[in-house]
């Protein structure tokens, strides 16, 4: 039996109950092992990304998971990755941005934070409010660069000063005990 290798399996499509169970059952029966996964509903769509260890190549893994995905009308995509477990990057800062929905807000905020040294570990955004008055809410966590939180605070203060959005920055002081 060949050495299992990591692949990233992405599945998207219209959401309905039982998708995760159907797909993971097919993977389990095919001898796969799951690593880290992230599933979230976006605009009513089901989306999931899974690290899957599998002895075959990407097309073999796609063939394995394909039938269960197709039955549920989902799109499936597999790529080999240089993945590893136990390589988590612990975020030390959380940033929340919210305001009236407007084009370019993510690009503006993330560009400013990247220039200030932030490495984004995870990001999630939502459009709330009403259809007539949508509001945009973004939350991200990341690791501050060498300069610490100061440059990030300055970058966010500049964005806030231009108006239209509220921003907040909070440090994540993880406790180990």
């Amino acid at each position, binding site marked *: 039996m060949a050495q299992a290798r990591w692949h990233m399996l992405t599945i998207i499509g219209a959401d309905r109950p039982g998708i995760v169970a159907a797909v993971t059952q097919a993977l389990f029966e095919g001898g796969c092992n799951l690593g880290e996964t992230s599933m979230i509903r976006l605009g009513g769509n089901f989306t999931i990304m899974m690290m899957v260890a599998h002895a075959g190549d990407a097309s073999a893994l796609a063939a394995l998971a394909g039938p269960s995905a197709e039955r549920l009308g989902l799109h499936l995509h597999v790529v080999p990755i240089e993945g590893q477990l*136990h390589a*988590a990057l*612990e975020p*030390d*800062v*959380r940033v*929340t941005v919210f305001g009236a929905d407007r084009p370019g807000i993510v690009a503006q905020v993330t560009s400013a934070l990247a220039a200030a040294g932030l490495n984004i570990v*995870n990001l*999630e955004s939502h459009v709330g409010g009403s259809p007539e008055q949508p509001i945009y809410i973004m*939350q991200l966590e990341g690791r501050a660069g060498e300069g610490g*939180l100061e440059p990030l*605070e300055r970058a*966010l*203060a500049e*964005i*806030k*000063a231009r108006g239209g959005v*509220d*921003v*907040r*920055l*909070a*440090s*994540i*002081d*993880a*406790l*180990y*005990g």
Partner: protein
Amino acid sequence: MLEILRYPDPRLKEISEPALRFDDELRAFAAALEEARRAGPATVGIAAPQVGRLIRVAIVDVSGRKPGKPSGKPETCHGRMVLVNPEIVEWDGLAIGREGCLSVPDFTGNVIRAEQIVLEARDEHGASSRRELSGFEARAVQHEVDHLDGILFLDRLVSRRADLFQRKTYQGAAK
């Protein structure tokens, strides 16, 4: 050096017994426990069950940590506290915070804890004390007292996506 037990070692889920004798053996154990705490990177607390002794002894010391942003909320620091038979007798406020554990490597998660507590405990010589703790130090004590009751932070996880309580906030330009 005492060995740190890791989940799923069943001893981490046991309820520990009160320490009854404040003798040299207890003091030697507390010293060994402190040595084990210091061996961990940035470890602010340790509890006896984490090294396989099911007695109600823990150590908390947040004096060595480098805090991020000032929270604007009270943050106590009592230095090193050897806690024998500790009891939390009052709780106030709630805050979400990120925790990790020597016994659960390579994972951190969000946990809701009281922001302020009143702690009664003895030390390794049997002297009793009553302390008011807040912020990170209060969180550390709650994490360690949980260990004495066989509870891991994994038992109290809330979503990493949850942000119910902003523990340390900063209003953009209003510095």
